[in-house]
């Protein structure tokens, strides 16, 4: 399969990137690591007139500790940098655990944190070649008007399949976004739409630049549990992130988020209350598991049955609570 024809833009500065976005917005695809975009372009899921390769913009790379504020992570930072950072492992355990489960070591050298956050939603009816998609009559997310997962509906249910966003939700991360009107800051929890086909609240002429982790989330105990068939390579079929603050006594603050079972990563409603003021024991973990399963809406977008994946959200949430307590 060949790549569709496009013009390659290679900005060296953020300003250049912004002006490209302003000029070609809507007809441009940003390439960070390219691990997801390139195969998708070969499948003709994206046929942009312009591809903007932002890897030349050095300021978008790296983990910077800002005392009193927290940590700023450049959107271009490879996942392997997070994996290798002792600081991240010690202070933001849940993100570290999520990052090490992404794809394979080689892909983590290329894949970036920003790319993982903006990752396209996935569905077995969508992530296929043009020829294959013709055979199924296309789908609502691309070139068609039908959802094979929920026939009769008009909504796209493609599953958000990034591993790091649920961890970042638990850490109450903010995103810094740049566009023609300047820089804006948005909580990650408000970045996703919950629609499978237009899943990001990001204008076509905007771009993610930084991920900001508050200092108040540092030192939280955390764990990420991922359902997949292989020990490597695979996207999650379900993923659960748990993080809480606890200093000897009961849980003081907590968040639980799930991924790969909805069109967006979601914070589990009620999980906070289930954990705060309690010891994260077997019983509490079971309650959290049930809340997580209730928030999950797995469909036939992915391998294994939706019923099994929902069940695993329950099991994995429980395990994540207990593992976080031990972390």
């Amino acid at each position, binding site marked *: *399969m*060949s*790549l569709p*024809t496009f013009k390659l833009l290679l900005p060296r500065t953020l300003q250049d990137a912004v002006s490209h976005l302003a000029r070609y917005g809507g007809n441009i695809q940003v390439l960070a690591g390219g691990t997801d975009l390139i195969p998708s372009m070969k499948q003709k899921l994206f046929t942009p007139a312009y591809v903007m390769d932002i890897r030349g913009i050095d300021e978008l790379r790296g983990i910077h500790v800002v005392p009193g504020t927290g940590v700023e992570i450049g959107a271009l930072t490879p996942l392997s940098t997070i994996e290798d950072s002792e600081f991240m492992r010690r202070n933001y355990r849940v993100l570290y655990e999520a990052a090490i489960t992404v794809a*394979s070591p080689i892909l983590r050298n290329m894949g970036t944190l920003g790319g993982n956050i903006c990752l396209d939603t996935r569905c*077995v*009816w969508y992530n*296929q*070649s043009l*020829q*294959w998609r*013709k*055979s*199924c*009559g296309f789908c609502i997310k691309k070139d*068609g*008007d*039908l959802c*094979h*997962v929920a*026939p*009769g509906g008009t909504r796209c249910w493609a599953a958000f399949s990034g591993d790091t966003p649920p961890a970042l939700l638990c850490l109450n991360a903010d995103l810094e976004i740049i566009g023609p009107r300047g820089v804006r800051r948005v909580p990650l929890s408000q970045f996703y739409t919950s629609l499978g086909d237009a899943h990001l609240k990001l204008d076509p002429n905007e771009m993610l630049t930084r991920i900001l982790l508050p200092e108040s989330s540092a030192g939280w105990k955390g764990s990420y549990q991922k*359902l997949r*068939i*292989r*020990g*490597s*390579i*695979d*996207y999650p079929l379900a993923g659960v992130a748990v993080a809480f603050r606890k200093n000897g006594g009961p849980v003081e603050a907590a968040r639980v988020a799930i991924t790969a079972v909805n069109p967006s990563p979601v914070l589990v409603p009620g999980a906070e209350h289930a954990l705060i003021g309690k010891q994260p024991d077997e019983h509490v973990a079971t309650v959290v598991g049930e809340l997580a399963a209730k928030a999950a809406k797995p*469909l*036939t977008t992915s*391998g*294994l*049955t*939706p*019923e*099994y994946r929902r*069940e*695993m959200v329950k*099991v994995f949430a429980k395990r994540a609570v207990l593992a976080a307590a031990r972390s």
Partner: protein
Amino acid sequence: MTDFSIIGKSVALIDSAGKTTGQGKYADDLSLPGMLIGKILHSPYPHALIKKIDSSRAEALEGVIAVVTGPDAPNKYGILPVGHDETALAVEKVRYVGDNVACVVAISESIAEQALDLIQVDYELLPAWFDPEDSMKAEKDWIHPQRPNNIEKDYHHVFGDPEKGFAESDLVLENRYLAGEVTHAAMEPHSTLAAFEPDPQTGKPGRLTVWSSTQVPYYLQHKLSIVLEMPMSQIRVIKPLVGGGFGGKSEVIPLEIIAAVAARKAKAPVKITYTREEVFWAHRGRPRTIIDLKTGVKKDGRITSVAARVVQDGGAYCSYGVVTILYSGALLGALYDIPNIRYDGYRVLTNKPACGAMRGHGTVNVRFAFESQLDEIANRLGIDSAVIRRRNLLKPPCITVNNLRVQSYGLPECIEKVIERSGWMKRKGRMLPGRGLGLACSHYVSGAANSIIRSDMPHSTVNIKIDRDGGVVVYTGASDIGQGSDTMVAQIVAEVLGISLGRIKIIAADTDLTPIDIGSYSSRVTFMNGNASLRAAENVKTKILAAAAQKMNCSPEDIVMRHDMLWKRGTPEPHGKGAEAVQILEKVDTPRGNVQEVSGRVEGQILRGSLQQKRKEEGPKDRMSFEEAVVSAIDFSGALTGTGSYAPPKDARGGAFKGAGVGPSPAYSYSAQVAEVSVDEDTGEVTVHKVWAAHDCGRALNPVSVEGQVIGSVWMGMGQALQEEMVWKDGLLMNPGLLEYKSPSSAESPEVETIIVESVDPEGPFGAKEASEGSLAATIPAIANAIHDAVGVRLREAPFTPERVLAAIRARKQAAKALEITRGADPSAPKVFREHGGSLWYKGKGPERHPDDPARKNGDKALAGD
């Protein structure tokens, strides 16, 4: 005799340097001046008549040279003489999503892809068949009109008296087993380059050369001759390096024919390389199989009777199907002593990509059922799994009830070894909760005793040419597909001639240069081509010895050839330079006791003149170098050549009944395995911690190579056991890529401890038998039996995905809504294949192709495609 110099040594494969440095050429690496790229248009419908193909817009696109369609080459072909049901490109009808409709030839891949979109095909849809048991009931709309009820072939074999056997038994078990469809997933996707030379007299396309990723160059030459209506002598097939076959390249794959037809039409060389998705559509893997198995035993575990009904979901074309369904029955025999067998096999056509031969061809799924059921019987009778198998051993040499001749039989030793190494007696039944051990056995042919096209022709012939430089060129038709056959041939020839590997050059698998060999399939190459190589080497050795004997004034029998030297038996072993050179992975102890390092090429070529001079000065002598002997032989007999052939002996070719041709082999390999697993009872995830695999390969010509093959077989079996499965929805393959088709990664691959058992077969070359396939089949039931040992559930549907394992655990615990997670299907008592959820068709909005679509209920079945 075990005093070998190169046999039994772990030498590096002779083509490994090219592969590891990237210098080796695979088919897709090849390029010719003026070469064009071909891209194939595939059917989007599972079953439809082609009403019209309009390729004018595609042809008008700048850069497009030709568009080829079915009528350009309508002759039918197929790998089996009884199954000529394929055409290069669809004529009149498409039979599966992915069937080949047209081919665009253009100056670049991207232009060819663009042109595919411009071809207008009008289809008339036909009802399609996806489930084999439904398909068998079809009364019309058959996939091939000459195959009523969509049954490609059915066989009904009775050996002994099965009913009497069941009547005499103390316990009878009867279960249905399902095995999902799996594919080879070779690393190299198929690729073919075809080029015609202009005829010097007419200027029209003359001789054809095809470079292709194939396991069977001679069959490809034969089928090209049928489709192109050219004499075989005008067609040359060359096999470059091949990146794995596993059966997926063991027959003629559509692109191989299409590339040649396209090259003829475009009047230029054409290369086609499949995308991974196209590899899945070309497929020819292991079919989904339903096995209804019944086994009767006495109280002591002795098997009295076996009855199997096997239904294979063969896809849209015959491919190797008739052979697959016969192997499934025939290989019930030759592992254990079974006095009575009834076998009913059905190869069924469905509207899906054709299934064919895959590692362990035909035996794997039935072996899964058999070994699982035998384990269950052992449990019921309170007999140890190893003991019940020992009580059913054959007593070779013997002929089984279904006419298979068994001579060497290392199974008892295989069982003994894995029991010992795994600590079975001490550990079985005493493991932590959720952890278990499982045992299973398997076997496989060392080549089919009867070739696909029945004849008395030898199955392999090998030629050897030795020139005055002392270099030995071996011409073998054997296709090295990564399994190491070139190295095997070189080792055998080197051993016979007593020379170093560096002297040997292998010319292989080129139909113009090498004598016929029917291909790399059915694990036949070491046994058959190895024997031909052995005979060719002995043939040429006789000539060298005759010449040397004259010079040394003794009889040929008195001469020893070894270490690149010849000497009179009884005289001191020479310490010559020529003794230098075996390319060996480790340091090798030579019989003289000194240790030699890895050495490269043979030291310099000795000019003939100086040799002659030297010889004149000397009288009769006690020793000569290999070069000197070669020169004497050339002086003596002109060109120094040797030839050797192999045909299986008559008494190994099986019975006379219909279908008796498949199953017989000159020798069988044997395997016993113990798997250690743990099962997570909350998630159903199975972890394989270790597999002990003992394989009887007769003699290990190259132990490291045998170990590699056994580990690969176990690994592939584990993939099929736990995670690999082609997932279908109404004929559409949901996972046509290596991301969603889950071959195991290194992360979940267990340690495999291989144990080589050498039964030294009386007819194998140096006693060798097959090593590449026989170990696969045991892995699946070994894991199934280990899961049962761990958590007490009996999985009868493969693969044992976590959802299935969890469903079985819950069904056992009789929990409420136990089976919701598998949508009501109980994997411990499976009934039918389950398809992927979701819908391909709904109220006409979708692909408009399914006859059950509610929007299409009111008629109008003819629909135009896009």
